């Protein structure tokens, strides 16, 4: 029983990671109807930004995390201005392939610039252990979970209470109406991108101390985040978050009780099962983020 509990706790860390990355994807799809296959690379670059700020520049952890998120927000804006502008009005095939192409470019540039050796960024919290009964976990995992909850709460507030956030929600429900009513569609799109990228960067800053940073880290992450977005109902952020946690926990349980080698298949099997049984996603085809 304790074993089961421990595996579930592992699943929560994984789920938090997938949820943060999937939220960015869901936002982009919900608000701007964009498929971004390079989202995992936002996470990867955010990881390197965090590493640079924390390990190389010696900033304290919270400052380094903020730097990572901010750096990615700026990158997100630049990405929107260059790549996204060009493909926003094209078919989703073009969007998928274009963002896939940028993913290849970013991954290989990272290999050239940072090298293939993974970077590790342990923090005090990731090395300090908390003992809860028979379960041992690094304090940093608690931080990840708490931070994820705070971030989702803040996002919820942002979308419900701020002008830009409300505009995002409106755009995700009916873009044409927004343009008619006078919403600055371009500005909202930019803001969405900055926010999504910042989320990915923040996720990297949060999770990297527990794992490591290397150029290829985004590849599998993108796919799993997509699985979560689909299972949650394309564009429905809360759905994506819930689905991400489901996938994270399912993966941990499968790894612990079935076979560790096959665990990566779990996310895709869940996704395929949902697609077969409820193609509109677990929570139905919701309108809006």
């Amino acid at each position, binding site marked *: 029983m304790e074993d089961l509990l421990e595996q579930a706790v592992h699943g929560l860390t994984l789920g938090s990671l997938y949820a943060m990355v999937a939220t960015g994807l869901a936002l982009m799809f919900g608000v701007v109807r964009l498929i971004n296959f390079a989202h995992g690379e936002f996470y990867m670059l955010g990881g390197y930004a965090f590493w640079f700020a924390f390990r190389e520049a010696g900033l304290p952890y919270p400052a380094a995390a903020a730097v990572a998120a901010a750096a990615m927000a700026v990158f997100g804006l630049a990405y929107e201005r260059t790549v996204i502008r060009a493909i926003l009005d094209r078919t989703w095939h073009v969007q998928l392939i274009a963002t896939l192409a940028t993913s*290849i470019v970013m991954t290989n540039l990272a290999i050239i610039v940072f090298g293939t050796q993974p970077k590790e960024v342990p923090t005090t919290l990731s090395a300090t252990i908390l003992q809860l009964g028979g379960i041992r976990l690094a304090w940093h995992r608690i931080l990840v979970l708490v931070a994820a909850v705070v971030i989702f709460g803040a996002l919820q507030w942002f979308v419900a209470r701020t002008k830009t956030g409300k505009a995002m929600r409106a755009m995700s429900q009916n873009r044409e109406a927004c343009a008619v009513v006078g919403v600055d569609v371009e500005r909202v799109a930019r803001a969405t991108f900055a926010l999504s990228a910042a989320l990915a960067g923040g996720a990297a800053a949060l999770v990297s101390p527990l794992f490591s940073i290397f150029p290829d880290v985004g590849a599998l992450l993108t796919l799993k985040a997509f699985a979560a977005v689909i299972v949650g109902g394309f564009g429905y952020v809360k759905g994506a978050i819930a689905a991400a946690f489901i996938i994270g926990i399912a993966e941990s349980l499968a790894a612990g009780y079935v076979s560790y080698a096959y665990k*990566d298949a779990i996310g895709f099997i869940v996704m395929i099962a949902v697609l077969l049984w409820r193609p509109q996603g677990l929570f139905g085809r919701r309108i809006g983020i």
Partner: protein
Amino acid sequence: MRRIAWTLGALGLVAVPWIVAGVAPGQRRYILHILVLTALWGALALSYDLVVGHVGSLSLAHPAFFGIGAYAAALLATEARWPFAAGLAAAVGLAGLAALAVGVPLFRLTEHSFAMGSLGFAMVTSIVATNWVDFTHGPLCITGIPKPALGPLRIVTLPQFWWLALAAVVLVALLYHGLTTFRLGRAFHAVRDNEGLAAAAGVNALKYRMLAFVIGAALAGGIGALWVGYINVLCPSELAVSVTVNLLVIVFLGGVGSLRGVVAGAVLFTALPEILRVAPTWRLVIYGSLLLVIVVKRPEGLETALRALGRRGARAA
């Protein structure tokens, strides 16, 4: 006039081993090897373009069908000692059947879900190939796959492999041409360009999508069998998602929906690394950038871009 050009072209292709031996005798085996790979990639890309270019379904599952064919042929040849032709037929059949089984549920999905669902299938196939070690040997690879033998004809030397690969790509090209012209081709394109209108006109989109999907998959399986007959070793790496990326580069770089374009894409894709001779990581940066530029500026591909350049040049003259 055109007939002469075609005949000369065909003769030229058949005579490639001698032409290469004459032009670059010291490197002829390497060049022939690259040409064999080019032909096989070209055939594979054509089979992929049937699905992507002509019915407009962005399937990401193609490496899975290539892999199913490859593993079927490899295992039947090494474990059950099946002759090459039988293994090839099995590869084609099994890949086609897999596509049928997977296609039925997949095509019920819309656009993005279809793409992601097909990707999920490709990932699961890759994971199974790597981990079901008792059956597929996993990363320890299947070795000792025999070279193809068609009756008394044994295909062993590079020129023989060239002719086999050439025959394969010509066959696929003919099939591709036949399927994408005439009434069938028009039906495919109707489904791709405006599904609603096509349905209103009585064209069953699902039927045509499945047809292209299954035929494309079966062809991919067959090419998998040829591949393992040539390389004689099969590892799960051949099934990786990166194969899809390569196919997308070839198809979109060359010209999606166009036979000449796809073949040009395959030549560029296989020849470019040899011509460029840059560090492999930079090569991937270049591919990615090219793909991005092409797909954004001119999704029809390089061929259309070159043709436009040519026209502009002719007009200026």
